[in-house]
């Protein structure tokens, strides 16, 4: 076997200088090719737009959906009881920050979208069911049939902006060839997912908050970032954080005491407490009837591979679990969008987990049913909105003068200097992870810890801002991912420090109670200097 030679193209210099080897034009550019991005691209194409979709990995395997089997919620048009049930399913846990009128609109749209998907030949067992690998393979085919141009292994590194602030495309690299690319577009949809901070949770290694950083650099705001204290139950030696199967089991501590008076997700704080005090937590899926075991295995094959490959019977033997940080992936925080999924920056739209999901599930988890519904609904609206924006621009769209909006990791100290000094991308990532991944720091937060972490993160940011960059494509991508991780951690902890109460996925050990006076949203803006504004919640 010959050894691999790193591509030595000076992608860093090319991107920073605007010197591209690949140049495309589109009406709509979609960044991110999991469920939300695929849906946005299809919606834009149906609206008559020429669409390019750029995906960091491979469109079909990238993102959390491809590595899972999920089911999306929807509201049946003619079944009032079902509608009431599904619309209100997470209202209690949203802690006063959801918007039931909007939830209804999302689940009406997801019903229409799931029905269209079925009509297009997607034969899942049940409406709204997305067996991951098949769903994304099916959608890849749909995209190709709709003449969407797919750029695989092509992470976007920055948005391109006109002098008056409109987003008019993006630039990035083909990470295998090292070529620099640019897509000039009438409008852009960010669908890059959340940020799991490279915790290793299955399917999340591509989700590094790239869209938050690119969006915020262009002027977009974020919301709900403090509702990000979720850690997924994970078989102790593995990486799968899927949660549905725990509803079929019990969770115990070392002494055999039940940690799950409430099922699955709700048991996570008890598991965290047990692990933090040095104990272990054990699971056995003994609520599943033996005749259901095969069905379970078939429905979540990736989860059960862990057990079959290790020779463990998860239904009869107990097995230890750990907690893996999921950041904003199944939580709330992200880019603030309006009802049509526009960010407020002209030409910039967002869909899926990259957006704030407080409207849907408030301060609580958006994962599974609501998130899948949101991917298709927000994808539909963002795709349509972007197509309409591009159409209104007309033929002049690609004649606009544009400039790269990317800074940290790309243009150190404001200029292109090639390879940087100071901590590199990998070291920056490791230092961010030291602040954000440990249960000790981020599950039950407190003011002192948050202040100390923020001090270190701010210093890290200042150093990265001044010096972080890279030449080769993979190192350049790492540098930008490091910048996105550092920026996300700073937004999360800044909002967490400002919210002096506990609510949903934000838990303060120094403020353990929910404070009725803080039933509002925290809106963040700025990348170097972070500003916080309050936005009132809907009347109770």
């Amino acid at each position, binding site marked *: 076997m010959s050894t691999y030679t790193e591509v030595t193209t000076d992608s860093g210099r090319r991107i920073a200088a605007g010197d591209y080897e690949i140049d495309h034009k589109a009406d709509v550019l979609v960044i991110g090719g999991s469920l939300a991005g695929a849906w946005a691209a299809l919606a834009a194409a149906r609206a008559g737009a020429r669409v390019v979709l750029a995906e960091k990995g491979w469109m079909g395997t990238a993102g959390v959906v491809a590595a899972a089997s999920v089911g999306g919620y929807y509201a049946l048009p003619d079944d009032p009881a079902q509608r009431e049930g599904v619309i209100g399913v997470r209202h209690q846990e949203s802690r006063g920050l959801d918007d039931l009128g909007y939830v209804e609109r999302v689940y009406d749209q997801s019903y229409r979208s799931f029905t269209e998907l079925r009509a297009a030949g997607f034969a899942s067992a049940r409406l709204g069911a997305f067996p991951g690998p098949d769903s994304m393979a099916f959608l890849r085919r749909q995209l190709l049939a709709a003449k969407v141009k797919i750029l695989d292994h092509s992470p976007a590194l920055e948005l391109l902006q006109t002098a008056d602030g409109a987003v008019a495309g993006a630039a990035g690299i083909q990470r295998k060839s090292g070529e620099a690319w640019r897509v000039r577009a009438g409008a852009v949809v960010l669908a890059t997912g959340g940020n799991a901070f490279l915790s290793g949770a299955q*399917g999340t290694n591509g989700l590094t908050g790239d869209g938050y950083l690119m969006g915020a650099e262009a002027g977009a705001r974020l919301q709900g970032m403090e509702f990000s204290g979720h850690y997924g139950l994970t078989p102790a030696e593995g990486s799968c954080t899927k949660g549905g199967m725990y509803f079929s089991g019990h969770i115990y501590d070392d002494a055999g005491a039940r940690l799950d008076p409430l099922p699955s997700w709700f048991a996570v704080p008890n598991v965290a407490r047990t692990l933090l005090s040095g104990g272990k937590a054990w699971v056995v899926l003994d609520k599943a009837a033996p005749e259901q075991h095969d069905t379970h295995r078939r429905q979540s*094959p990736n989860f059960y591979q862990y057990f079959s490959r290790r020779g463990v019977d998860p239904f009869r033997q107990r097995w230890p679990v750990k907690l893996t940080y999921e950041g904003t992936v199944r939580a709330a925080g992200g880019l603030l969008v309006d009802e049509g999924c526009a960010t407020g920056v002209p030409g910039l739209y967002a869909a899926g987990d990259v957006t704030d999901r407080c409207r849907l599930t408030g301060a609580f988890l958006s994962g599974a049913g609501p998130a899948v519904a949101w991917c298709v609904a927000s994808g539909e609206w963002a795709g349509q909105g972007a197509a309409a924006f591009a159409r209104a621009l007309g033929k002049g769209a690609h004649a606009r003068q544009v400039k790269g909006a990317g800074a940290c990791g790309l243009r150190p100290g404001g200029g292109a200097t090639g390879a940087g000094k100071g901590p590199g991308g990998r070291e920056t990532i490791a230092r961010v992870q030291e602040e954000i991944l440990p249960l000790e720091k981020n599950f039950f937060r407190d003011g002192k810890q948050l202040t100390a972490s923020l001090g270190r993160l701010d210093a890290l940011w200042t150093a990265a801002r001044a010096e972080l960059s890279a030449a080769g494509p993979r190192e350049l991508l790492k540098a930008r991912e490091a910048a996105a991780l550092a920026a996300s951690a700073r937004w999360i902890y800044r909002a967490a420090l400002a919210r002096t109460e506990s609510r949903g996925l934000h838990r303060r050990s120094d403020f353990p109670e929910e404070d009725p006076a803080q039933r509002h949203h925290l809106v963040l803006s700025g990348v170097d200097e972070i500003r916080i504004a309050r936005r009132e919640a809907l009347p109770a």
Partner: protein
Amino acid sequence: MIELILEPRCVRCLACVRVCPNDVLEADGDGLPYVARQQDCCSCFLCEAYCAPDALYVAPEAYPLPGLDAAQLLADGRIGAFRRALGWDQRKPGELDARAGAAPAIQRGHPGSPQDLHRSESYANGINRH
């Protein structure tokens, strides 16, 4: 993490290099895939799913696990198990048969059915309880 590429079974189609979402694999000068960045693998098994000749093995452990016995893994059916579990040994990716469904907890009824109402009056923020 991905552990094995079985050279005798590999047909050098490089599907694994193409589909890995985390850019873990590369092709060498002879057109044979190899593991270039194992630390970026999160055991999603999708390279196995797209490997028609079953020439890959991904261990479910989130850390390297050297010294696996390929002959044993082949003999006991662990190699190729994920592809078979998806039904992709029988059909093309994305051409679903209706048996494939959602996760069991969601599968039981319509969304909003009693099984899906995991609400609890006592759940506030995870701190107050106990």
